[in-house]
């Protein structure tokens, strides 16, 4: 800001717009992040611009989170901690969502749950937890990030914010993205499973827009439907 002011000092009136246009970006180089330095150094991949992180799966395998689990796929990605599930049952919600996704689950979209309690949530514990919760065998990985630094970079990228995944949280979101397209959003973990299914489906490829148009809504006033929208069917 001050740099810009200095840079443009003496430029007046009408010319200022032109100068400002040319100068924006040429200045302020000095103000680049300190706190974000780690992320600056992190290499980011693909259209979703995600960092890489080594993870350990519940089967004890070591994988690259981005290259092995996300690249080329549509994913739902969330943070959880086993000891927090009684107060914040995010995994139970995901199980419900997975069921409602039907055949598209595991085929068109994969789930990845990252523990925010990497010390306690060992692969064996995650495996037992997944079994207890009725998590399907395919299409869903529980993982822990092995490096604290990579974990911090990943969380910051996903929430686009300085953020430490909190193993005691009562408020969180699920990230959903289509990696090859570069489309990435998040929804609160508290929403209805039916709602989550609609949102997840909306980022999957498919459908046409050039043919006969279908009515999305509103549905008839006396027609049954989902309580949180006016869509048909």
């Amino acid at each position: 800001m001050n740099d810009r002011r200095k840079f443009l000092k003496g430029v007046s009136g009408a010319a200022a717009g032109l100068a400002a246009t040319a100068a924006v970006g040429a200045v302020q180089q000095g103000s680049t992040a300190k706190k974000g330095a780690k992320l600056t150094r992190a290499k980011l991949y693909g259209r979703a611009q995600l960092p890489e992180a080594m993870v350990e799966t519940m089967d004890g395998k070591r994988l690259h989170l981005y290259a092995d689990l996300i690249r080329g796929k549509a994913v739902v990605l969330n943070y959880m901690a086993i000891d927090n599930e009684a107060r914040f049952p995010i995994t139970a919600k995901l199980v419900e969502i997975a069921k409602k996704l039907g055949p598209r689950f595991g085929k068109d979209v994969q789930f990845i749950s990252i523990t925010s309690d990497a010390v306690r949530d060992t692969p064996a514990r995650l495996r037992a937890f997944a079994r207890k919760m009725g998590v399907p065998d395919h299409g869903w990985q529980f993982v822990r990030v092995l490096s604290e630094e990579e974990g911090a970079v990943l969380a910051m990228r996903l929430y686009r914010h300085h953020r430490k995944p909190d193993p005691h949280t009562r408020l969180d979101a699920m990230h959903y993205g289509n990696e090859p397209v570069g489309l990435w959003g998040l929804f609160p973990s508290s929403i209805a499973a039916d709602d989550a299914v609609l949102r997840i489906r909306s980022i999957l490829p498919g459908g046409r827009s050039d043919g006969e148009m279908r009515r999305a809504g509103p549905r008839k006033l006396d027609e049954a439907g989902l309580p949180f929208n006016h869509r048909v069917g």
Partner: protein
Amino acid sequence: MVSRRDTLKLGAAAGAALLTKSAAGQMIPQSGLVFPDGYTPSWVDNPSPPVRPFTTPLFRMPNAKPVPRSALNPPPDPARHQRFHEFEPKKFYIQTLQEILWAYHVDPPYNRGSWSYGFDGITPGQTFITNYGEPLFVRRLNRLPPVGMGKVAWALPSFSIHTHNGHQASESDGFPADFADPGEYWDHHYPSFPAGFDPTEVMSTLWYHDHRLDFTATNVYAGFSGFFLAFDDRDSNNENDRNPQAFRLPSGKYDVPLILHDVQFDQDGQVVWDFVGSHPTTSGEAGHGGYGPNPFYTVNGMIGDRFTVNRIIQPYFKVERRKYRLRLLNGGPSRFYSLAFTKDGKTPETVYIISNDGNLLPHPIETKDYFDIWPANRYDIIVDFSKYREGDQIYLTNRLEERDDGAGATGRYLDPTNLLMRFDVVGGRVEDPSRIPDRMIERPKIDLSEVKRERLFVFDYTNGLFTINGRLMDPNRIDAAIEQGTAEIWTLRNDGDAWGHPIHTHFEEFQIIEVNGKPVPPGSMKWGRKDVVQLGPGDEVKFFGRWRDFFGKYVMHCHNVVHEDHAMMIRWDIVEPGTGF
């Protein structure tokens, strides 16, 4: 004037009124520079390609053209709309939402076009010219390429178009979960009557924009916004009106809607969304895989480095020597402005503010100062160019410095300022039948005996997410059930110390009673009907509102649309009397 005092108050209320010395030596408050510094938007390293400002003419959106009722197949279905037959549509429209190539400027690379979302080939979309008593029906077709097929990769090809702040039934309001995907359409019925049939509730400058769950910010930024103007027999769209009640405000080609969006571009002139994914850049030097040139995406907001007006970068507009009605709208996504019309880039010219948030004020306010305009705020302003000489140039000027991360204003004023567009005065004296009326629309009466409930909404931030009363948006949860036909008093409090939140509630206008415990001075700009509250750090605003005419779900949310998507929004419903909570 008002804006300056408000800014001072805002700083004091935050309890963090750090004073900085501006270039002019004037002490002005920091309005909340507390949030961790260190985010740098990618345009700092990869600025948008330069342009020669004021070399591209202003885009004047065409008016939406009605179609015959028979063009709608299937025809409008009354069974899908509340009170359809009472407000039988008189005009019908079809709007096609599609991916378009839009030229933001005549200079290369912009002249080759930027892939955008538009309405029937343009952005902003066609202007709807509507009249009270003349309900309309709009069918919107989603002809966007399905996911993965489009050129705009970072936006979602799905829409829920909301007319802000139309008095329409829930199913036509653009509720965020009421989306239409590619190949689908949605019918919107706009009944065109003032709330409660109260003539003091007549509105004038509305706009429409996307409201899709989780993707409102990207989709509005990509191009889904436009104007929706409402007229009646007083604000009659005719400056020659012989009706003695008519205001005779400048009309026709002298009534000019102006929507501000700040946008970032890559070296090919393609729009960059510096937030979730982004468009590939050809600059390549940053070495981040050739896509987003910088990893600093934040939830604070999205700030572009090119100022556009009606989706043209720094346009010029030739004006005759007479009065104009300029309808200013901050279309976001996140930037706050403090605006004035200046000749020297600094000193405000005298203008007349006639409306706030789309509502004509009781009387015009003459001002020679800057005025604050946050996302979704609107002001109709009469500028009298007859006092200038041929060849004079007047600039729409912004002096508010925005935090680079988009969280809000820094509290500093820019020197030099940003010049957003230029008005070029041309020609000799001309006839000007238009007027600046002495009186316009009185405020609706506030009757506290109608108040059924008082509510408190606290806006805050928790670990990367934006909350209201500690919760995130769930369209399946009713956060307030308001009994139809009652009034309520709502207190909005910003418990955050770093963000300014422009808070918007749908469907009904409200009247602010108190800002930080102090009553709104009669005759000031906030002394009128509004639909966006400027909730600065630590601010508390109390308003009175009525809820009438329809049932069903609506929303209140932050209109920094990045905050809205993360998920600073509530659902409130209008319910049968006796069933509220």
